[in-house]
């Protein structure tokens, strides 16, 4: 039997004015297990706390009930008090007789009656409390960043600057991501490469950062503070340590007609290639599917020319395993496939391009050296039509239900740049809404209209018909209430963006949740926007939702701050109120594993003693990882055999509370 002490607080007159505190203490004294009950003006004051500590010592109390303000206010205070007196801090319960009693009831009798019941309920619960100890786990002081775009680079730089080791794993041969393909950035119109490439170099030269390019994370186990990741380093058939990036091999390679991914297939590259001049690492890679040597065994030209002896046709995929304290997801996005939107003739005419393709067509390092030319015949386009919301804000199976957020601004940027560079070119933009929240954004869009004379048409294009080398664009002008027809030379589609295809498998690997659109879910949509609900997994950039560059960078740094906060700890103290399985009762059905939002439950085979000649048997039972469990209790209700329970909110404790209220 517990020895319980009850301490009723007056809270000055806050409680004492409406609740007869002496009567509450009197009533509490009659409850089973209660050996001491008293009241005092301010329990939270130093004098009040001393009163509690002294009573614990004097009456050899094993459990304490404080009848006072809300536990959200002072539970932590009183836990420290009882701990100082040598009790386990979880042998304490608070009865909320202020916010949920004295402050809302006017009638003194009624309020006192209720306070008695609340005290009784807390006593009933504390009688069943057991000492709990928060688990501790060590923190590996190294972070893994999945994805080497601007989000991943920024997070990595910030974490590394704080003095922690960071590994960036990027599946492409170079880091930099989508931003490397962008020509200029809104609303300042500075060149993307000029602001990005120095950051890429910073990352490469940072002593705390290791870049694994052309690599993928294939497996993640463990939990916050102690993740273990397996990284596949894909064979690039070039020794990264030897290659100097001179590019001699790429100029001699005879396999020249391969789609250049960096320019989105608008031109060709050789089989051995460096994605672009400022690639990091600046190391060549061989595309085995188009390499003549890899396909036929004959050629070997690059190996002969390479002065550094870096070419190795026999290179194999390698795997490395590393431990990390925190993982940053920065997997980014891609424009959607537009083949399903062929009313805009994307797959029927090379002159219908996506906005990202237009970036390449306008970029000095692009296939046209920065001169805007039609892909079909290399002529200068005189009429260009932009179509917004292609695949965004759709509720059919073809598109995405969300707004892609960045298209309004980059379309204004494209329109403006074209009008500036080629004043003889007519530019029409079909829009449903122009969405420009952001610093200097609406001013930017207005400049496109007012200063550069871009023709914005409110309405959607219904159909683009390629005919006689032209593109016949037919759409709505909702303001004029007419159907407009424009004979265009080029059509640019603002394609919706979607999370990178790897998001789903990486989410599964990390037991981090994603939404129906495959965007990673944040731990709290307002208050914890850069953390995933899975402890130790953080979100950076568009993998969490559509964002422009400034927002991505801001979020990447916020994410880094959270990672640093975690890595700065030597040990992690968990919440002891976590799930706990009674292995004797568990039947191994896996129901709890499926409802757990954190992946905290795994199954293992264990040996149990059984009656009879066999003496023991092996059974599959649930096992809770206390470092990962957040203690929500979903599993306890799902468990059909009643084996799952939550410490501190145990079934029998809640039953006791219910019984005490209804008594």
């Amino acid at each position, binding site marked *: 039997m517990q020895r319980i002490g009850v301490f009723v607080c007056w809270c000055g007159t806050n409680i004492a004015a409406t609740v007869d505190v002496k009567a509450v203490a009197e009533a509490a004294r009659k409850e089973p297990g209660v050996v001491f009950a008293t009241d005092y003006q301010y329990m939270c004051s130093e004098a009040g706390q001393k009163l509690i500590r002294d009573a614990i010592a004097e009456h050899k109390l094993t459990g304490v009930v404080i009848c006072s303000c809300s536990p959200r206010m002072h539970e932590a205070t009183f836990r420290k008090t009882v701990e100082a007196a040598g009790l386990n801090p979880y042998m304490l319960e608070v009865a909320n007789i202020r916010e949920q009693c004295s402050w809302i009831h006017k009638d003194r009798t009624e309020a006192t009656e209720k306070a008695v019941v609340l005290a009784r309920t807390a006593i009933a619960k504390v009688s069943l409390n057991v000492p709990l100890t928060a688990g501790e786990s060590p923190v590996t002081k190294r972070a893994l960043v999945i994805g080497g775009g601007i989000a991943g680079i920024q997070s990595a730089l910030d974490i590394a600057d704080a003095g922690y080791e960071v590994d960036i794993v990027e599946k492409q041969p170079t880091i930099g991501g989508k931003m490397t393909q962008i020509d200029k950035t809104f609303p300042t119109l500075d060149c993307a490469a000029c602001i990005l490439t120095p950051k890429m170099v910073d990352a490469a030269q940072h002593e705390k950062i290791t870049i694994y390019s052309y690599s993928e994370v294939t497996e993640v186990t463990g939990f916050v503070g102690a993740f273990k990741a397996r990284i596949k380093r894909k064979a690039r058939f070039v020794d990264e340590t030897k290659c100097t990036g001179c590019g001699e091999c790429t100029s001699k390679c005879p396999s020249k007609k391969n789609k250049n991914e960096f320019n989105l297939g608008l031109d060709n590259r050789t089989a051995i290639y460096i994605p672009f001049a400022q690639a990091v690492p600046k190391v060549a890679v061989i595309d085995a599917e188009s390499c003549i040597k890899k396909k036929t065994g004959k050629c070997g030209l690059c190996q002969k020319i390479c002065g550094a002896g870096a070419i190795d046709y026999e290179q194999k995929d390698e795997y490395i395993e590393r431990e990390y304290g925190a993982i940053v997801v920065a997997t980014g996005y891609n424009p959607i496939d537009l*083949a399903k*939107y*062929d*009313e805009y*003739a994307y*797959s*029927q005419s090379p002159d219908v391009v996506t906005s990202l393709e237009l970036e390449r067509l306008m970029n000095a390092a692009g296939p046209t050296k920065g001169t805007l030319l039609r892909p079909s015949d290399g002529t200068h386009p005189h009429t260009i039509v932009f179509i917004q919301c292609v695949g965004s804000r759709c509720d059919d*199976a073809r598109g995405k239900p969300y707004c892609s957020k960045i298209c309004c601004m980059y379309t204004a940027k494209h329109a403006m740049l074209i009008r500036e560079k080629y004043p003889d070119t007519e530019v029409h933009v079909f829009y449903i809404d122009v969405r420009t929240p952001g610093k200097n954004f609406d001013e930017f869009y207005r400049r496109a209209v007012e200063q550069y004379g871009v023709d914005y048409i409110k309405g959607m294009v219904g*159909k683009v*018909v*390629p*005919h*006689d080398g032209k593109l*016949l664009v037919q759409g709505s002008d909702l303001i004029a209430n007419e159907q407009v027809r424009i004979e265009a030379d080029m059509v640019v589609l603002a394609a919706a963006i979607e999370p990178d295809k790897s998001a789903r498998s990486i989410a599964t690997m990390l037991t981090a949740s994603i939404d129906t659109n495959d965007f990673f879910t944040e731990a709290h949509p307002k208050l914890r926007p850069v953390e995933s609900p899975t402890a130790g997994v953080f979100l950076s950039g568009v993998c969490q939702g559509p964002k422009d560059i400034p927002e991505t960078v801001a979020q990447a740094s916020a994410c880094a701050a959270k990672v640093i906060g975690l890595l700065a700890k030597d040990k992690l103290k968990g919440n002891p109120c976590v799930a706990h399985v009674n292995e004797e009762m568990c039947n191994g059905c896996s129901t709890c594993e499926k409802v757990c939002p954190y992946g905290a439950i795994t199954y293992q085979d264990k040996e149990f003693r059984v009656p009879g000649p066999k003496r023991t048997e092996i059974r599959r039972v649930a096992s809770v990882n206390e470092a990962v469990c957040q203690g929500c209790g979903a599993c306890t209700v799902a468990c059909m055999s009643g084996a799952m329970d939550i410490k501190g909110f145990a079934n029998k404790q809640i039953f006791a509370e219910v019984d005490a209220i209804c008594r």
Partner: protein
Amino acid sequence: MTFSYYPGCTLKTKAKDLDRYARSAAAALGVEMAELPEWQCCGAVYPQAKDEIATKLSAVRALMAARDEGRELLTLCSACHHVIKRVNHDMVSDENIRTKVNNYLKPEVPYTGETKVIHYLEMLRDTVGFDELAKRVTRPLKGRRIAAYYGCMLLRPGNVMGFDDPENPRIMEDFIRAIGAEPVVIAYRNECCGGYMTLENRALAQKKATTVVDAAASAGADTIVTACPLCQYNLDVNAVGERVPVLYFTELLAEALGVKEAEA
């Protein structure tokens, strides 16, 4: 392989060519077309309102007859294909329509959309195969530049018709290639020909038809093929200005298979 065949009214009167060349070509390809006994007019347009039941019954009768014969239902006219396929989709997906239709018709076995509705072109693509068809062609239409005109009915709505990519179809072009001719992809090949508007507003029908035929002419097509009698009529009769012959695809098929003269 044997299909239950639903010809439709127009193929028995004004569009006999569409029908008889289809039959002779099918025979040459070893496909049997067993015409449904006592079929009724499909109604020519799909009744879109949810409370239109009576106007869907004739299509269901055809579907049910094919089911009872244990065969897939082959269609040829675009309009019939459209109506029957969409009514069948209703019978699968709309419980209200399904219940009311079955209550009305009281079949021995209630009909719930089991019949598969196949257009002749789909049969050529999926049952015969265009590669196989190319091998069977005895008189390839070498040097011919043929434009395919799809119209609306075969393609839309794409999620019900499931015929081809509704915005960038290729089945007719593949067909044209299989019979040895050169397909000419033309603008407006999946835009409306004017349809039944020829009765209400001939000027509109003329405008629509002319746009299509002009596109074919300027693309250098020597022939337009279609699968729909109404499209054929509009493009042939209502187009003003430059004219391009408008034929049923089955006629060219029969020609390429060398069975056209035998028929004529």
